[in-house]
């Protein structure tokens, strides 16, 4: 099952999985009772999995966050939301498939859901540009957020991008302006905003969907000002130092909770969200409902004031 995408640190699990499969094959082929052996191996596998996943290094977490089987925005849109109607385009230049969005229902309530969207294979990735949006994507996102605010609907954003696309057209059409505008407008948008980092939270391209009243992270997602590879290349002129950079940058959900940048960590099933997308979705859904319900009770002006105060308090410095 997972063999096609087994991560380096999952190799010890692979051997146990192979043994279990082998026993099952014997069972069907020769009608031998192996239930006892299988159960023992399965228990060993779960224990080992638990051990491995309880002490992932930050860089190992990055590989889980980037796992090609990890659920993406459209997966959650089809499982934990209902009545989704995708809306396209920035009304200015084009539609950017690296960001998807539209009306949906969360426990019956109309919400605007906007998320980065990666592709699962080469063809889809070319279309989705590996989840790296152009300015048009951000402008579409803002258009949809303002649409939601106009009708009093909460905004839910799902973050999963390596970063805003660094390309010629993106620069020509004002990538900086698009990001800067979203960040400013989100800080003052008069409707509840709940964000969840579901995979990679890549720098300004993530933040431009991520200024919110509540920011959540899935357990194995990461959120960083720069990729570990980029940081290593700049500081040590050596991209292979990414392990060191990933640890130094403090990019895991636990780190961000400690730094008070996020509000809650949503636990993932053993072995990561891709091992059980439905269970992950169920936990995400529960958290989103809880936060949206709370925020809907607060008047929009008060919401915006609190949001501004929250961001005003971010940062650490010394005043002598």
């Amino acid at each position: 099952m997972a063999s096609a995408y087994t991560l380096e640190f999952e190799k010890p699990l692979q051997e146990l999985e192979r043994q279990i499969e082998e026993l099952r094959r014997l069972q069907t082929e020769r009608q031998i009772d192996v239930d006892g052996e299988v159960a023992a191996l399965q228990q060993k596998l779960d224990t080992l999995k638990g051990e491995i996943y309880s002490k992932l290094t930050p860089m190992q977490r990055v590989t889980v966050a980037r796992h090609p089987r990890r659920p993406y925005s459209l997966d959650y849109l089809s499982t934990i939301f209902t009545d989704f109607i995708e809306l396209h385009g920035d009304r200015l230049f084009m539609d950017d498939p690296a960001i998807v969005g539209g009306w949906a229902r969360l426990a019956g309530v109309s919400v605007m859901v906007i998320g980065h969207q990666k592709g699962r294979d080469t063809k889809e990735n070319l279309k989705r540009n590996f989840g790296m949006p152009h300015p048009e994507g951000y402008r579409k996102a803002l258009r949809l957020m303002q649409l939601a605010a106009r009708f009093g609907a909460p905004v839910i954003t799902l973050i999963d991008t390596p970063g805003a696309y660094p390309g010629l057209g993106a620069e020509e059409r004002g990538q900086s302006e698009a990001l800067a505008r979203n960040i400013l407008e989100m800080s003052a948008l008069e409707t509840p905003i709940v964000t969840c980092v579901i995979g990679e939270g890549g720098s300004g391209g993530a933040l431009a969907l991520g200024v919110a009243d509540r920011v959540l992270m899935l357990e194995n997602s990461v959120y960083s000002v720069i990729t570990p590879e980029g940081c290593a290349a700049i500081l040590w002129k050596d991209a292979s130092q990414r392990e060191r950079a990933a640890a130094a940058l403090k990019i895991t959900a636990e780190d961000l909770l400690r730094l008070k940048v996020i509000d809650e960590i949503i636990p993932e099933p053993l072995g990561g969200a891709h091992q059980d997308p439905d269970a992950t979705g169920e936990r995400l859904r529960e958290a989103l409902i809880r936060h949206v319900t709370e925020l809907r009770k607060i008047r929009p002006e008060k919401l915006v004031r609190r949001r501004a105060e929250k961001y005003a308090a971010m940062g650490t410095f010394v005043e002598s």
Partner: protein
Amino acid sequence: MAVMAWFKKERKPRTSQRARLEIPADAWEKCDRCGHIDLREKFEKSLNVCPECGRHRRFSAEEYIELLTDTGTWRELNAALRSADPLQFEHYVDRVASARKKAGEADAIFTGAARVDGLPFNLGVMNFRFMGGSMGSVVGEKIARLARRSLEKKIPLVLVSTSGGARMQEGVLSLMQMAKTSAAIAALRNAGIPYISILTDPTTGGVSASFAMQGDVILAEPGAVIGFAGQRVIKQTIGQDLPEGFQTAEFLLEHGQIDDVVPRGSLKETTARLLRHMQGQRPHHMESVEQLA
């Protein structure tokens, strides 16, 4: 960067051999675009703009403060803010210490109150020499406080940007400074307090993707490199060379991203005139002009 190769071929240094012999060698400076050689004093007198080709060479934060404010009106604010080391990032403390030795105590931005052509305003000028003008918690806090002061006193804000982007060593906290400064600018916008953003060479990354691109009016110096992504990263991503003049102030003007390209020598006057327009005030020489009915 826009290197105008044909300039190099056509223009020769004009200073005579004899004059050069009489003056110590280190008093001379050379323009990196056209090769023009002149006395440092000459460059300084022309605001570090090449008298031959108009190339705007780097200007220090202190020089911008002097350029943009009326003599004797500058009063620095929040000068006592210092970087902490929230992530215990390796060597960050040492890097900040050596930056302070090299570039002063103000971290990567000076903020203060002053007057421009008689008008009170709040001014922030980023300091590229301090860790490449990178934005960490101190830069974010200083800008947020300056914007709040503008809001409380109802006086306009002017920020002069130059930055390589967010300060990596403060990790995601430096990313959050983009949201913090943006929220502060949003409050100004909401209250109708003018904010002019002046972009100088270079303005990229997290600074360009936040307050630098949020001005009610955005001006840039000639030739300044402005963009979100660094040119090396773009080149690597697209696997081809970048067009001549890509990401320069002129490129941004042509693509509708900024309001105007303004030479250094006109920045102060342009700023004052814009502030008067945005605050419903008349220029001095128009006091007697008849008012619109």
